[in-house]
Protein backbone atom coordinates (compact mmCIF):
# COMPACT_ATOMS: atom_id res chain seq x y z
CA UNK A 1 0.00 0.00 0.00
CA UNK A 2 0.96 3.62 -0.20
CA UNK A 3 2.30 4.83 3.08
CA UNK A 4 3.85 7.98 4.39
CA UNK A 5 7.52 7.40 4.84
CA UNK A 6 9.17 9.52 7.48
CA UNK A 7 12.66 10.75 6.66
CA UNK A 8 13.71 11.77 10.11
CA UNK A 9 16.97 13.30 8.94
CA UNK A 10 15.10 15.80 6.78
CA UNK A 11 12.49 16.95 9.29
CA UNK A 12 13.10 20.57 10.13
CA UNK A 13 10.45 20.84 12.82
CA UNK A 14 8.50 23.60 11.09
CA UNK A 15 5.17 21.90 11.83
CA UNK A 16 3.65 22.88 8.53
CA UNK A 17 2.38 19.31 8.38
CA UNK A 18 0.35 19.78 11.54
CA UNK A 19 -0.97 23.07 10.25
CA UNK A 20 -2.07 21.70 6.92
CA UNK A 21 -3.50 18.56 8.50
CA UNK A 22 -5.68 20.73 10.64
CA UNK A 23 -6.79 22.75 7.64
CA UNK A 24 -7.55 19.66 5.60
CA UNK A 25 -9.73 18.28 8.36
CA UNK A 26 -11.55 21.53 8.96
CA UNK A 27 -14.97 22.33 7.60
CA UNK A 28 -13.88 25.28 5.50
CA UNK A 29 -10.50 23.89 4.40
CA UNK A 30 -9.36 27.50 4.27
CA UNK A 31 -6.30 28.02 6.34
CA UNK A 32 -7.05 31.36 7.92
CA UNK A 33 -10.68 30.54 8.59
CA UNK A 34 -9.86 27.10 9.90
CA UNK A 35 -7.37 28.55 12.36
CA UNK A 36 -9.71 31.27 13.49
CA UNK A 37 -12.75 29.08 13.96
CA UNK A 38 -11.71 25.49 14.42
CA UNK A 39 -8.22 25.50 15.82
CA UNK A 40 -9.34 24.20 19.20
CA UNK A 41 -11.76 21.62 17.91
CA UNK A 42 -9.49 19.70 15.58
CA UNK A 43 -6.75 17.34 16.64
CA UNK A 44 -4.30 16.96 13.77
CA UNK A 45 -3.54 13.40 12.79
CA UNK A 46 0.16 14.22 12.69
CA UNK A 47 2.38 15.38 15.50
CA UNK A 48 5.91 16.69 15.34
CA UNK A 49 8.14 15.29 18.01
CA UNK A 50 11.27 17.20 18.77
CA UNK A 51 14.33 16.66 20.89
CA UNK A 52 17.31 18.91 20.33
CA UNK A 53 17.85 19.08 16.62
CA UNK A 54 16.23 15.73 15.99
CA UNK A 55 12.62 15.89 15.01
CA UNK A 56 10.09 14.04 12.98
CA UNK A 57 6.44 14.25 12.19
CA UNK A 58 4.66 11.13 13.24
CA UNK A 59 1.28 9.96 12.15
CA UNK A 60 -0.47 6.60 12.06
CA UNK A 61 1.78 4.04 10.39
CA UNK A 62 -1.23 2.19 9.01
CA UNK A 63 0.33 -1.03 10.23
CA UNK A 64 -0.32 -4.19 8.35
CA UNK A 65 -1.21 -6.04 11.56
CA UNK A 66 -2.86 -3.01 13.04
CA UNK A 67 -3.28 -3.59 16.76
CA UNK A 68 -5.85 -0.82 16.95
CA UNK A 69 -8.17 -2.64 14.58
CA UNK A 70 -7.86 -5.80 16.66
CA UNK A 71 -8.49 -3.91 19.86
CA UNK A 72 -11.51 -2.01 18.61
CA UNK A 73 -14.68 -3.24 20.21
CA UNK A 74 -17.12 -1.53 17.88
CA UNK A 75 -15.55 -2.13 14.50
CA UNK A 76 -15.12 1.62 14.15
CA UNK A 77 -11.45 1.12 13.41
CA UNK A 78 -11.23 -0.55 10.04
CA UNK A 79 -8.98 -0.95 7.09
CA UNK A 80 -10.19 0.80 4.00
CA UNK A 81 -10.40 -1.93 1.41
CA UNK A 82 -9.24 0.36 -1.38
CA UNK A 83 -6.39 2.33 0.12
CA UNK A 84 -5.60 -0.14 2.90
CA UNK A 85 -5.47 2.84 5.22
CA UNK A 86 -6.55 2.30 8.81
CA UNK A 87 -9.54 4.53 9.30
CA UNK A 88 -11.53 5.42 12.41
CA UNK A 89 -15.22 5.76 11.74
CA UNK A 90 -15.90 8.43 14.32
CA UNK A 91 -19.67 7.83 14.16
CA UNK A 92 -19.17 4.35 15.52
CA UNK A 93 -16.35 5.07 17.97
CA UNK A 94 -17.52 5.13 21.59
CA UNK A 95 -14.25 6.41 23.03
CA UNK A 96 -13.16 3.32 24.95
CA UNK A 97 -9.48 4.12 24.17
CA UNK A 98 -8.49 0.56 23.57
CA UNK A 99 -6.84 1.77 20.36
CA UNK A 100 -4.93 4.44 22.25
CA UNK A 101 -3.78 1.72 24.60
CA UNK A 102 -2.32 -0.51 21.91
CA UNK A 103 -0.83 1.97 19.45
CA UNK A 104 2.95 1.70 19.91
CA UNK A 105 3.60 5.05 18.27
CA UNK A 106 0.84 6.90 20.08
CA UNK A 107 -0.63 8.03 16.81
CA UNK A 108 -4.21 7.87 17.99
CA UNK A 109 -5.41 10.76 20.07
CA UNK A 110 -8.58 11.52 21.87
CA UNK A 111 -10.38 13.66 19.38
CA UNK A 112 -12.66 16.65 19.50
CA UNK A 113 -13.99 17.15 23.03
CA UNK A 114 -12.32 13.87 23.96
CA UNK A 115 -15.30 11.89 22.75
CA UNK A 116 -13.91 9.73 20.02
CA UNK A 117 -10.57 8.62 18.68
CA UNK A 118 -8.89 10.78 16.10
CA UNK A 119 -6.12 9.75 13.78
CA UNK A 120 -4.54 10.14 10.36
CA UNK A 121 -6.82 9.06 7.55
CA UNK A 122 -4.16 9.54 4.85
CA UNK A 123 -6.33 12.41 3.62
CA UNK A 124 -8.98 10.32 1.99
CA UNK A 125 -10.27 13.37 0.18
CA UNK A 126 -6.94 14.34 -1.29
CA UNK A 127 -4.82 12.48 -3.77
CA UNK A 128 -1.70 12.88 -1.68
CA UNK A 129 -1.86 13.50 2.06
CA UNK A 130 -1.53 17.22 2.71
CA UNK A 131 1.27 16.75 5.22
CA UNK A 132 3.35 15.20 2.45
CA UNK A 133 2.41 17.84 -0.09
CA UNK A 134 3.23 20.67 2.26
CA UNK A 135 6.40 19.33 3.78
CA UNK A 136 9.02 21.77 2.53
CA UNK A 137 11.87 19.34 2.93
CA UNK A 138 10.42 16.03 1.80
CA UNK A 139 10.75 14.66 5.29
CA UNK A 140 7.46 12.98 4.54
CA UNK A 141 7.16 10.98 1.36
CA UNK A 142 4.09 9.18 0.15
CA UNK A 143 5.19 6.02 -1.52
CA UNK A 144 4.33 2.45 -2.18
CA UNK A 145 6.11 0.33 0.27
CA UNK A 146 7.39 -2.61 -1.61
CA UNK A 147 9.31 -3.75 1.43
CA UNK A 148 6.53 -5.89 2.74
Amino acid sequence: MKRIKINEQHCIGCRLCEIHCLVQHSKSKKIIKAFREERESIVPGIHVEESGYVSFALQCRHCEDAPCIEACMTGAMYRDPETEAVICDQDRCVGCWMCVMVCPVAAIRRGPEDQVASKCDLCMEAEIPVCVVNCPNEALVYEDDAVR
Partner: protein
Amino acid sequence: MKRHPYLIIGNSVAAIAGVEGIRQVDDDTPITILAREPHHTYSRPLISYWLSGQVDDGDMFYRPEDFYEQNRVDVILSQEVISVDPQNQTVQTADGHRIAFDKLLIAAGGQPIVPPDIPGSDADGVFTFTTWDDARNIRDFVTQQGVQQAVVVGGGLIGLKSLEALVELGLQTTVVELADRILSATFDQTAAELAQTMLEEAGVTVLCNNTVAEIATEDRQVKEAILHTGQHISCQLVVFAIGVRPNIQMVADTSIAVDWGILVDDHMQTSVADVYAAGDVAQAPALLSDERRCIPILPNAYRQGCVAGQNMAGADQLYRGGLVMNAVDICGLPTISVGMTTPDNEDCEVLTALDEEAPSYKKIVLCDEKVVGAIFVGDIDRAGIFTGLIKQEIDVASCKELLLTEDFGVISLPTEYRKHLVSGMGIEV
Protein backbone atom coordinates in the same frame (compact mmCIF):
# COMPACT_ATOMS: atom_id res chain seq x y z
CA MET B 1 -22.77 -37.23 7.83
CA LYS B 2 -21.72 -33.93 6.31
CA ARG B 3 -18.36 -32.82 7.51
CA HIS B 4 -17.59 -29.16 8.06
CA PRO B 5 -14.09 -28.25 7.07
CA TYR B 6 -14.00 -25.33 9.51
CA LEU B 7 -16.36 -25.37 12.44
CA ILE B 8 -16.41 -22.53 14.92
CA ILE B 9 -18.23 -22.58 18.22
CA GLY B 10 -19.06 -19.04 19.18
CA ASN B 11 -19.97 -15.84 17.40
CA SER B 12 -18.15 -13.11 19.20
CA VAL B 13 -14.74 -11.47 18.80
CA ALA B 14 -12.56 -14.61 18.87
CA ALA B 15 -14.89 -16.44 16.51
CA ILE B 16 -15.06 -13.55 14.07
CA ALA B 17 -11.29 -13.15 14.26
CA GLY B 18 -11.11 -16.89 13.54
CA VAL B 19 -13.11 -16.33 10.35
CA GLU B 20 -10.90 -13.42 9.37
CA GLY B 21 -7.78 -15.44 10.19
CA ILE B 22 -8.91 -18.35 8.05
CA ARG B 23 -9.77 -16.01 5.20
CA GLN B 24 -6.31 -14.47 5.25
CA VAL B 25 -4.99 -17.86 4.23
CA ASP B 26 -7.88 -19.71 2.62
CA ASP B 27 -10.24 -17.81 0.37
CA ASP B 28 -12.99 -20.30 -0.34
CA THR B 29 -13.38 -23.30 1.94
CA PRO B 30 -16.72 -22.87 3.72
CA ILE B 31 -16.81 -22.00 7.40
CA THR B 32 -19.59 -22.88 9.79
CA ILE B 33 -20.39 -20.97 12.95
CA LEU B 34 -22.51 -22.37 15.72
CA ALA B 35 -23.83 -19.50 17.85
CA ARG B 36 -25.55 -19.91 21.15
CA GLU B 37 -27.15 -16.48 20.92
CA PRO B 38 -29.70 -15.51 18.30
CA HIS B 39 -27.92 -12.34 17.16
CA HIS B 40 -25.76 -11.34 14.25
CA THR B 41 -22.29 -10.94 15.69
CA TYR B 42 -22.30 -8.03 18.07
CA SER B 43 -19.83 -6.40 20.37
CA ARG B 44 -20.18 -7.55 23.94
CA PRO B 45 -18.33 -4.60 25.47
CA LEU B 46 -20.89 -2.33 23.88
CA ILE B 47 -23.76 -3.59 25.99
CA SER B 48 -23.10 -0.99 28.64
CA TYR B 49 -23.14 1.73 26.01
CA TRP B 50 -26.37 0.22 24.65
CA LEU B 51 -27.88 0.11 28.08
CA SER B 52 -27.10 3.75 28.69
CA GLY B 53 -28.51 4.60 25.29
CA GLN B 54 -25.18 5.79 23.91
CA VAL B 55 -25.41 3.34 21.04
CA ASP B 56 -28.55 2.00 19.47
CA ASP B 57 -29.35 -1.45 18.09
CA GLY B 58 -27.86 -0.75 14.71
CA ASP B 59 -24.49 0.17 16.11
CA MET B 60 -24.17 -2.95 18.22
CA PHE B 61 -22.94 -5.16 15.44
CA TYR B 62 -19.28 -6.02 15.42
CA ARG B 63 -19.16 -6.59 11.72
CA PRO B 64 -21.36 -5.39 8.85
CA GLU B 65 -24.57 -7.17 7.95
CA ASP B 66 -23.05 -8.93 4.96
CA PHE B 67 -20.06 -10.17 6.91
CA TYR B 68 -21.03 -13.87 6.83
CA GLU B 69 -21.95 -13.70 3.20
CA GLN B 70 -18.80 -11.91 2.22
CA ASN B 71 -16.72 -14.48 4.07
CA ARG B 72 -18.77 -17.50 2.95
CA VAL B 73 -19.71 -18.33 6.51
CA ASP B 74 -22.66 -20.57 7.21
CA VAL B 75 -23.91 -19.32 10.54
CA ILE B 76 -26.32 -21.33 12.66
CA LEU B 77 -27.78 -19.15 15.40
CA SER B 78 -29.33 -20.26 18.73
CA GLN B 79 -27.47 -23.52 18.57
CA GLU B 80 -25.69 -24.33 21.81
CA VAL B 81 -22.97 -26.91 21.77
CA ILE B 82 -23.02 -29.14 24.79
CA SER B 83 -20.17 -31.46 24.06
CA VAL B 84 -17.25 -32.05 21.81
CA ASP B 85 -16.08 -35.47 20.75
CA PRO B 86 -12.52 -34.95 19.60
CA GLN B 87 -11.97 -38.61 18.74
CA ASN B 88 -14.79 -38.72 16.22
CA GLN B 89 -14.41 -35.08 15.34
CA THR B 90 -18.02 -34.21 16.09
CA VAL B 91 -19.87 -31.83 18.35
CA GLN B 92 -23.21 -32.38 19.99
CA THR B 93 -25.75 -29.58 20.15
CA ALA B 94 -28.34 -28.96 22.82
CA ASP B 95 -31.12 -29.96 20.46
CA GLY B 96 -29.49 -33.25 19.67
CA HIS B 97 -27.62 -32.64 16.43
CA ARG B 98 -24.22 -34.08 15.85
CA ILE B 99 -22.04 -32.06 13.62
CA ALA B 100 -18.81 -33.36 12.15
CA PHE B 101 -15.78 -31.22 11.56
CA ASP B 102 -12.30 -31.32 10.13
CA LYS B 103 -11.01 -28.38 12.12
CA LEU B 104 -12.69 -26.96 15.14
CA LEU B 105 -12.33 -23.62 16.86
CA ILE B 106 -13.83 -23.35 20.29
CA ALA B 107 -14.52 -19.69 20.90
CA ALA B 108 -17.33 -20.24 23.31
CA GLY B 109 -16.39 -17.44 25.67
CA GLY B 110 -17.15 -17.44 29.38
CA GLN B 111 -20.00 -17.67 31.76
CA PRO B 112 -20.55 -14.99 34.40
CA ILE B 113 -20.13 -16.21 37.91
CA VAL B 114 -23.13 -16.00 40.23
CA PRO B 115 -22.39 -17.31 43.67
CA PRO B 116 -25.06 -19.97 44.27
CA ASP B 117 -24.71 -19.78 48.00
CA ILE B 118 -26.13 -16.28 48.33
CA PRO B 119 -29.74 -16.42 49.38
CA GLY B 120 -32.00 -14.58 46.99
CA SER B 121 -29.60 -14.75 44.11
CA ASP B 122 -32.30 -16.38 42.02
CA ALA B 123 -34.81 -13.59 42.59
CA ASP B 124 -36.30 -11.37 39.91
CA GLY B 125 -34.11 -8.35 39.60
CA VAL B 126 -30.83 -10.22 39.93
CA PHE B 127 -28.82 -10.10 36.75
CA THR B 128 -25.47 -10.76 35.30
CA PHE B 129 -24.04 -8.48 32.61
CA THR B 130 -22.26 -10.15 29.75
CA THR B 131 -24.69 -10.51 26.88
CA TRP B 132 -26.88 -8.23 24.90
CA ASP B 133 -29.83 -10.17 26.27
CA ASP B 134 -28.61 -9.41 29.79
CA ALA B 135 -28.64 -5.73 28.97
CA ARG B 136 -32.04 -6.02 27.32
CA ASN B 137 -33.44 -7.80 30.35
CA ILE B 138 -32.04 -5.16 32.69
CA ARG B 139 -33.45 -2.36 30.61
CA ASP B 140 -36.87 -4.02 30.40
CA PHE B 141 -36.85 -4.73 34.10
CA VAL B 142 -35.82 -1.18 34.99
CA THR B 143 -38.56 0.23 32.80
CA GLN B 144 -41.26 -2.17 33.80
CA GLN B 145 -40.56 -2.22 37.50
CA GLY B 146 -39.69 1.42 37.87
CA VAL B 147 -36.38 0.56 39.47
CA GLN B 148 -34.89 3.41 41.54
CA GLN B 149 -31.90 1.85 43.20
CA ALA B 150 -29.39 -0.71 42.13
CA VAL B 151 -26.50 -2.55 43.65
CA VAL B 152 -23.61 -3.78 41.57
CA VAL B 153 -21.60 -6.57 43.06
CA GLY B 154 -18.03 -6.36 41.87
CA GLY B 155 -15.90 -3.29 41.21
CA GLY B 156 -14.10 -4.69 38.24
CA LEU B 157 -14.33 -3.68 34.65
CA ILE B 158 -17.78 -5.11 33.93
CA GLY B 159 -19.13 -3.85 37.21
CA LEU B 160 -17.98 -0.32 36.55
CA LYS B 161 -19.28 -0.25 32.99
CA SER B 162 -22.69 -1.53 34.16
CA LEU B 163 -22.63 1.04 36.93
CA GLU B 164 -21.99 3.79 34.46
CA ALA B 165 -24.96 2.69 32.36
CA LEU B 166 -27.23 2.43 35.38
CA VAL B 167 -26.18 5.91 36.50
CA GLU B 168 -26.96 7.10 33.02
CA LEU B 169 -30.42 5.50 33.34
CA GLY B 170 -30.96 7.64 36.41
CA LEU B 171 -30.60 5.00 39.08
CA GLN B 172 -29.12 5.50 42.48
CA THR B 173 -26.31 3.02 42.57
CA THR B 174 -23.99 1.34 44.97
CA VAL B 175 -21.03 -0.80 44.10
CA VAL B 176 -19.80 -3.41 46.49
CA GLU B 177 -16.25 -4.62 46.07
CA LEU B 178 -14.67 -7.40 48.01
CA ALA B 179 -11.16 -6.04 47.64
CA ASP B 180 -9.81 -2.92 49.24
CA ARG B 181 -10.25 -0.91 46.05
CA ILE B 182 -12.11 -0.93 42.81
CA LEU B 183 -10.43 -2.33 39.71
CA SER B 184 -8.10 -4.09 42.10
CA ALA B 185 -6.84 -6.46 39.43
CA THR B 186 -5.24 -3.70 37.43
CA PHE B 187 -5.23 -0.52 39.51
CA ASP B 188 -3.11 0.41 42.44
CA GLN B 189 -4.45 2.33 45.36
CA THR B 190 -3.82 5.76 43.89
CA ALA B 191 -5.45 5.04 40.56
CA ALA B 192 -8.36 3.34 42.27
CA GLU B 193 -8.88 6.34 44.49
CA LEU B 194 -8.94 8.70 41.52
CA ALA B 195 -11.45 6.45 39.81
CA GLN B 196 -13.50 6.13 42.97
CA THR B 197 -13.61 9.91 43.28
CA MET B 198 -14.99 10.16 39.77
CA LEU B 199 -17.64 7.54 40.58
CA GLU B 200 -18.61 9.26 43.76
CA GLU B 201 -18.83 12.57 41.96
CA ALA B 202 -21.26 10.89 39.60
CA GLY B 203 -23.36 9.84 42.62
CA VAL B 204 -22.23 6.29 43.05
CA THR B 205 -21.72 4.88 46.51
CA VAL B 206 -18.56 2.81 46.58
CA LEU B 207 -18.16 0.19 49.27
CA CYS B 208 -14.93 -1.74 49.38
CA ASN B 209 -13.74 -4.55 51.61
CA ASN B 210 -17.29 -5.76 51.52
CA THR B 211 -19.69 -8.05 49.71
CA VAL B 212 -23.32 -9.02 49.45
CA ALA B 213 -24.19 -11.79 51.85
CA GLU B 214 -27.86 -12.00 51.07
CA ILE B 215 -30.47 -10.56 48.82
CA ALA B 216 -33.67 -9.86 50.63
CA THR B 217 -36.73 -10.42 48.50
CA GLU B 218 -40.43 -9.98 48.57
CA ASP B 219 -42.58 -11.93 46.12
CA ARG B 220 -39.37 -12.98 44.46
CA GLN B 221 -38.64 -9.31 43.92
CA VAL B 222 -35.34 -7.83 45.12
CA LYS B 223 -35.82 -5.48 48.05
CA GLU B 224 -32.48 -5.09 49.71
CA ALA B 225 -28.94 -6.18 49.53
CA ILE B 226 -27.56 -7.25 52.86
CA LEU B 227 -23.82 -6.94 53.12
CA HIS B 228 -21.37 -8.99 55.09
CA THR B 229 -20.95 -6.10 57.42
CA GLY B 230 -24.64 -6.25 58.08
CA GLN B 231 -25.43 -3.10 56.19
CA HIS B 232 -28.77 -3.09 54.35
CA ILE B 233 -29.00 -1.33 51.03
CA SER B 234 -32.39 -0.78 49.59
CA CYS B 235 -32.50 -1.74 45.94
CA GLN B 236 -34.66 -3.30 43.30
CA LEU B 237 -31.88 -4.46 41.08
CA VAL B 238 -28.70 -6.38 41.72
CA VAL B 239 -26.08 -6.96 39.08
CA PHE B 240 -23.47 -9.61 39.70
CA ALA B 241 -20.20 -8.68 38.05
CA ILE B 242 -17.71 -10.71 39.98
CA GLY B 243 -16.05 -12.48 37.13
CA VAL B 244 -16.35 -14.86 34.25
CA ARG B 245 -15.61 -18.56 34.06
CA PRO B 246 -14.54 -20.10 30.76
CA ASN B 247 -17.19 -22.26 29.10
CA ILE B 248 -15.35 -25.54 29.35
CA GLN B 249 -18.17 -27.92 30.18
CA MET B 250 -18.43 -29.00 26.56
CA VAL B 251 -14.96 -30.48 26.64
CA ALA B 252 -15.24 -31.97 30.09
CA ASP B 253 -14.08 -35.58 30.20
CA THR B 254 -12.52 -35.47 26.77
CA SER B 255 -8.92 -35.71 25.77
CA ILE B 256 -8.85 -31.93 25.42
CA ALA B 257 -6.76 -30.69 28.30
CA VAL B 258 -8.23 -28.03 30.52
CA ASP B 259 -7.18 -26.10 33.55
CA TRP B 260 -9.11 -22.93 34.37
CA GLY B 261 -9.82 -22.67 30.68
CA ILE B 262 -9.00 -24.82 27.69
CA LEU B 263 -5.25 -25.11 27.47
CA VAL B 264 -3.75 -24.09 24.15
CA ASP B 265 -0.23 -23.89 22.83
CA ASP B 266 1.41 -20.98 21.07
CA HIS B 267 -0.48 -21.89 17.92
CA MET B 268 -3.79 -21.73 19.78
CA GLN B 269 -4.15 -25.48 19.32
CA THR B 270 -5.55 -27.56 22.18
CA SER B 271 -3.98 -30.77 23.32
CA VAL B 272 -5.89 -32.41 20.45
CA ALA B 273 -4.80 -31.82 16.90
CA ASP B 274 -7.14 -29.83 14.71
CA VAL B 275 -9.01 -28.55 17.71
CA TYR B 276 -8.27 -24.95 18.58
CA ALA B 277 -9.53 -22.60 21.22
CA ALA B 278 -9.46 -18.82 21.46
CA GLY B 279 -10.88 -15.97 23.43
CA ASP B 280 -12.21 -16.01 26.94
CA VAL B 281 -12.46 -19.78 26.92
CA ALA B 282 -8.80 -20.29 26.22
CA GLN B 283 -5.91 -20.46 28.60
CA ALA B 284 -3.01 -19.38 26.50
CA PRO B 285 0.62 -18.36 26.83
CA ALA B 286 1.02 -14.94 28.34
CA LEU B 287 3.66 -12.26 28.31
CA LEU B 288 5.45 -11.52 31.57
CA SER B 289 4.52 -14.95 32.80
CA ASP B 290 5.77 -18.51 32.55
CA GLU B 291 2.31 -19.98 32.91
CA ARG B 292 -0.61 -20.04 30.58
CA ARG B 293 -3.33 -17.66 31.63
CA CYS B 294 -6.89 -16.76 30.87
CA ILE B 295 -6.88 -13.05 30.02
CA PRO B 296 -10.44 -12.30 29.01
CA ILE B 297 -9.95 -9.04 27.16
CA LEU B 298 -10.97 -8.11 23.68
CA PRO B 299 -7.60 -7.49 21.99
CA ASN B 300 -6.36 -10.89 23.18
CA ALA B 301 -9.54 -12.58 22.00
CA TYR B 302 -9.13 -11.10 18.57
CA ARG B 303 -5.46 -11.96 18.22
CA GLN B 304 -6.01 -15.51 19.49
CA GLY B 305 -8.93 -16.06 17.16
CA CYS B 306 -6.99 -14.71 14.25
CA VAL B 307 -3.93 -16.84 14.99
CA ALA B 308 -6.09 -19.90 15.47
CA GLY B 309 -7.89 -19.24 12.19
CA GLN B 310 -4.66 -18.80 10.25
CA ASN B 311 -3.21 -21.99 11.69
CA MET B 312 -6.42 -23.92 11.01
CA ALA B 313 -6.07 -22.88 7.39
CA GLY B 314 -2.55 -24.19 7.27
CA ALA B 315 -0.40 -21.22 8.20
CA ASP B 316 2.28 -21.36 10.84
CA GLN B 317 1.36 -18.35 12.90
CA LEU B 318 2.72 -17.84 16.36
CA TYR B 319 0.78 -16.34 19.24
CA ARG B 320 3.25 -14.18 21.06
CA GLY B 321 1.31 -14.24 24.30
CA GLY B 322 -1.38 -12.19 25.86
CA LEU B 323 -0.93 -9.18 28.03
CA VAL B 324 -3.25 -7.95 30.70
CA MET B 325 -4.41 -4.53 29.73
CA ASN B 326 -7.44 -2.42 29.92
CA ALA B 327 -8.71 0.90 28.80
CA VAL B 328 -11.67 2.14 30.74
CA ASP B 329 -13.36 5.45 30.70
CA ILE B 330 -14.75 5.98 34.16
CA CYS B 331 -17.39 8.67 34.10
CA GLY B 332 -15.33 10.73 31.67
CA LEU B 333 -11.98 9.90 33.24
CA PRO B 334 -9.94 7.92 30.75
CA THR B 335 -7.70 5.29 32.22
CA ILE B 336 -5.37 2.72 30.84
CA SER B 337 -3.54 -0.01 32.62
CA VAL B 338 -1.11 -2.44 31.06
CA GLY B 339 0.84 -5.37 32.37
CA MET B 340 2.09 -5.77 35.89
CA THR B 341 0.82 -2.66 37.66
CA THR B 342 1.19 -3.70 41.29
CA PRO B 343 4.39 -5.66 41.38
CA ASP B 344 5.07 -8.08 44.16
CA ASN B 345 8.64 -8.37 42.99
CA GLU B 346 10.94 -6.32 45.17
CA ASP B 347 13.42 -5.81 42.32
CA CYS B 348 10.92 -3.80 40.38
CA GLU B 349 11.34 -0.09 40.16
CA VAL B 350 8.27 2.07 40.26
CA LEU B 351 8.04 5.57 38.84
CA THR B 352 4.97 7.64 39.52
CA ALA B 353 3.65 11.10 38.86
CA LEU B 354 0.46 12.33 40.36
CA ASP B 355 -1.51 15.47 39.78
CA GLU B 356 -4.71 15.22 41.76
CA GLU B 357 -6.08 18.46 40.38
CA ALA B 358 -6.04 17.46 36.72
CA PRO B 359 -6.54 14.63 37.68
CA SER B 360 -3.63 12.81 36.20
CA TYR B 361 -1.64 9.87 37.36
CA LYS B 362 1.14 7.96 35.71
CA LYS B 363 2.83 4.91 37.05
CA ILE B 364 5.55 2.98 35.32
CA VAL B 365 6.79 -0.34 36.63
CA LEU B 366 10.27 -1.32 35.54
CA CYS B 367 12.05 -4.58 35.95
CA ASP B 368 15.63 -5.02 34.75
CA GLU B 369 15.39 -1.66 32.95
CA LYS B 370 12.40 -2.87 31.02
CA VAL B 371 8.87 -1.61 31.38
CA VAL B 372 6.60 -4.37 32.69
CA GLY B 373 3.55 -2.40 33.67
CA ALA B 374 1.98 1.02 33.48
CA ILE B 375 -1.07 2.90 34.67
CA PHE B 376 -2.35 6.08 33.12
CA VAL B 377 -5.22 8.05 34.52
CA GLY B 378 -6.33 11.23 32.82
CA ASP B 379 -3.51 11.81 30.35
CA ILE B 380 -3.51 8.60 28.40
CA ASP B 381 -2.35 9.84 25.00
CA ARG B 382 1.07 8.25 25.10
CA ALA B 383 0.04 5.03 26.87
CA GLY B 384 0.33 2.94 23.72
CA ILE B 385 4.05 3.60 23.58
CA PHE B 386 4.38 1.80 26.92
CA THR B 387 2.28 -1.12 25.72
CA GLY B 388 4.76 -1.40 22.88
CA LEU B 389 7.75 -1.16 25.21
CA ILE B 390 6.31 -3.94 27.35
CA LYS B 391 5.50 -6.19 24.44
CA GLN B 392 8.84 -5.67 22.74
CA GLU B 393 10.76 -5.85 26.02
CA ILE B 394 12.74 -2.76 25.16
CA ASP B 395 15.59 -1.71 27.43
CA VAL B 396 14.69 1.81 28.46
CA ALA B 397 17.72 2.60 30.58
CA SER B 398 18.69 5.35 28.15
CA CYS B 399 15.40 7.19 28.48
CA LYS B 400 14.31 6.31 31.98
CA GLU B 401 14.42 9.90 33.16
CA LEU B 402 12.10 10.92 30.37
CA LEU B 403 9.42 8.30 30.88
CA LEU B 404 7.25 10.47 33.06
CA THR B 405 7.96 13.81 31.46
CA GLU B 406 5.32 15.89 29.78
CA ASP B 407 6.78 15.61 26.30
CA PHE B 408 7.81 11.99 26.48
CA GLY B 409 7.18 10.56 23.07
CA VAL B 410 8.43 8.25 20.40
CA ILE B 411 11.40 10.58 19.98
CA SER B 412 12.48 9.81 23.55
CA LEU B 413 12.82 6.11 22.84
CA PRO B 414 16.08 4.27 22.29
CA THR B 415 17.21 5.22 18.79
CA GLU B 416 17.06 1.81 17.22
CA TYR B 417 13.57 1.05 18.47
CA ARG B 418 12.46 4.54 17.56
CA LYS B 419 13.72 4.18 14.02
CA HIS B 420 12.07 0.81 13.82
CA LEU B 421 8.76 2.35 14.79
CA VAL B 422 9.10 5.46 12.70
CA SER B 423 10.24 3.63 9.62
CA GLY B 424 6.93 1.78 9.85
CA MET B 425 8.79 -1.37 8.92
CA GLY B 426 6.24 -3.47 10.72
CA ILE B 427 4.63 -3.20 14.08
CA GLU B 428 4.50 -6.52 15.87
CA VAL B 429 1.11 -7.32 17.32
